[in-house]
């Protein structure tokens, strides 16, 4: 496997070679699928690249000083200390999927930003399922050292030839003192793919972790509940998720933040839409020390009568003086809103898309324009089916 890896080093300048067609592994359809989840196949304007197709790493490298990108298996050989970070933010015994990953994980990305390095351009990572019926299992580790900053865009998708398969991804993120990690993950799977990300994040004093998650394509069953532990004073975690569940899809997605240190803050925002699928939108805030602040917001839109959204917001205060709140609202689009926009000259279809776009209007940097079209398409489809 290793001989196919393009190992790139930072002295090679700021651009990477474009992702190449590699028959029979990848064709133009694959590159389209990668683009649809925010991967720039020309690799322009990226500080680093990591591309793994099935069990094989195609590209791994960094283009800015202070940034390291390689496969986790390579990193484990390079750094003895890395074993201390492995299975620390996520327990290997958490469930059957983590146990499977402990035995079977192949590669995944290792990304590290050296202390004080502020990486200008986003780094892109792509975990791609190319072969039908395969189980891709990866173990990712990201370490943003003290005072460093990084923006990661991860696109995970399955290829046009994939009907069924599975993706199991263990991810462990370490945001050290005063560091900042902005992590955006976009998923696009197929109708018969099972997806089980298992993610844990430790945020130290003064650190900030921002996680954005988007999934608008069919998936048989997606289940994840990433957890952040705010371990140092003033640490911050913010989760934003956008889910659109088409008919036949089941998405059970939540975010959990444990506020363990004084003056820590968190916000969890979820926007969910069903066009016929089932969504369980969870959120869990745990306040362990006095004076922490956190807010949870779950909003859901039912665009098809057969869809289901189940919002489960949880607040758990384990100390006095914690300030935590939540708001949850699930329902259809109010007809008054549609009529209001129609009275301004918009057709019913345009009014609905405008309202849905507004509903999904959370600020996520790096969202590919194609994704907006994708969301519009899903909404238009649901209206046709409902008519």
């Amino acid at each position, binding site marked *: 496997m290793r001989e196919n890896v393009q190992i790139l080093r930072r002295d090679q300048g700021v651009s990477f070679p474009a992702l190449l067609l590699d028959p029979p592994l990848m064709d133009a359809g694959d590159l389209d699928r990668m683009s649809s989840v925010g991967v720039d196949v020309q690799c322009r304007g990226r500080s680093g690249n990591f591309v793994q197709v099935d069990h094989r790493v195609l590209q791994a490298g960094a283009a800015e000083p202070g940034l390291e990108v390689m496969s986790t298996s390579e990193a484990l050989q390079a750094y003895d200390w890395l074993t201390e970070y492995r299975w620390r933010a996520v327990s290997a015994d958490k469930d059957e999927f983590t146990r499977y990953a402990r035995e079977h994980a192949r590669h995944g990305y290792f990304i590290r930003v050296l202390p004080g390095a502020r990486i200008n351009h986003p780094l892109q990572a792509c975990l791609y399922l190319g072969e039908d019926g395969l189980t891709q299992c990866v173990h990712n580790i990201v370490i943003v050292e003290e005072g460093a900053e990084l923006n990661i865009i991860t696109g995970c998708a399955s290829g046009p030839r994939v009907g069924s398969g599975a993706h199991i991804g263990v991810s462990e993120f370490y945001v050290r003192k005063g560091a900042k990690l902005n992590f955006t993950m976009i998923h696009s799977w197929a109708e018969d793919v099972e997806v089980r990300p298992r993610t844990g994040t430790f945020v130290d004093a003064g650190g900030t972790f921002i996680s954005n998650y988007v999934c608008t394509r069919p998936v048989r069953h997606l289940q994840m509940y990433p957890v952040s532990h705010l371990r140092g004073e003033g640490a911050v975690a913010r989760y934003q998720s956008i889910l659109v569940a088409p008919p036949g899809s089941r998405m059970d997605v939540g975010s959990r933040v444990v506020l363990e240190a004084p003056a820590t803050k968190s916000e969890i925002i979820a926007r969910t839409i069903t066009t016929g699928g089932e969504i369980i939108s969870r959120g869990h805030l745990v306040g362990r020390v006095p004076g922490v602040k956190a807010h949870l917001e779950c909003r859901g839109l039912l665009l098809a009568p057969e869809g289901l959204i189940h919002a489960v917001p949880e607040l758990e205060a384990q100390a006095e003086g914690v300030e935590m709140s939540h708001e949850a609202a699930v329902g259809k689009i109010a007809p008054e809103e549609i009529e209001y926009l129609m009275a*301004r*000259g918009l057709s019913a279809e345009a009014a609905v898309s405008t309202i849905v776009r507004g509903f999904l209007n959370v600020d996520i940097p790096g969202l590919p324009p194609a994704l907006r079209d994708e969301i519009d398409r899903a909404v238009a489809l649901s209206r046709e089916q409902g008519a």
Partner: protein
Amino acid sequence: MLTLEAFDVVVEDRQILRNIHLSIKPGETHVLFGPNGHGKSTLLNALMGFPRYQVAGHCWFKGLDITSLPVHERARAGIGLMFQRPPTIRGLTMREILKLCAADGVPVEDLAAELRLETFLDRDVNDGFSGGELKRAELLQLLVQRPNLALIDEPESGVDLENIGLIGRAINELLGRREPRPADAECRLKQAQRNAGLIITHTGHILNYVEADVGHVLYEGRLACTGNPREILSFIQKNGYGECVRCLNHQPEERSRVDA
């Protein structure tokens, strides 16, 4: 501009308006008086074509039978509605909605400044607006939309004294009229006006700022007492709507028909 013939409106199996005959010519501003719950807003909403208002009879606009035209096509044809209780639309900013409904070449920013709404442009549509701010935001959208017929639902309600003049100026601009000066208020100078308006007023207060040509009283779903709006208003203020009804009852049915 607008002609209603034997216009009936039913909402959820309840008849709200019956046998309305009304004609509004280009350049005319009509006001609609009447107690709460007697069908004033229903008439405006039915003219806009909202589906829960089932209508019978005919509605002509600029020579076109719009009786069964959907809402957005009426808007595109040139009918604009100032909502009495506009909904909040989260995630859509004022700037975006103005862009969506703006006619070509409309100076959105200037109009927003005129209505003291420049700081509202990046806020979500109607989100957390006060009563007066809602009215100004509605008028701003109409000014940008430039309808030929403006349907204006209680423009003065919830507006403080400081802002009512502003609202009045905006309505005059919308209708292509200027504010009546005290000296010529009674002269009813006809100006070169193209646009038409139908304004609901409960208190008549807006008439101090906007000159109207024709007044109507809508009572128990029927149109009555058509005539000089100031005379009607002062009659109502002195004698109440009840007297109006008696007046109406003494008139044969066809007298409620207006061929102004």
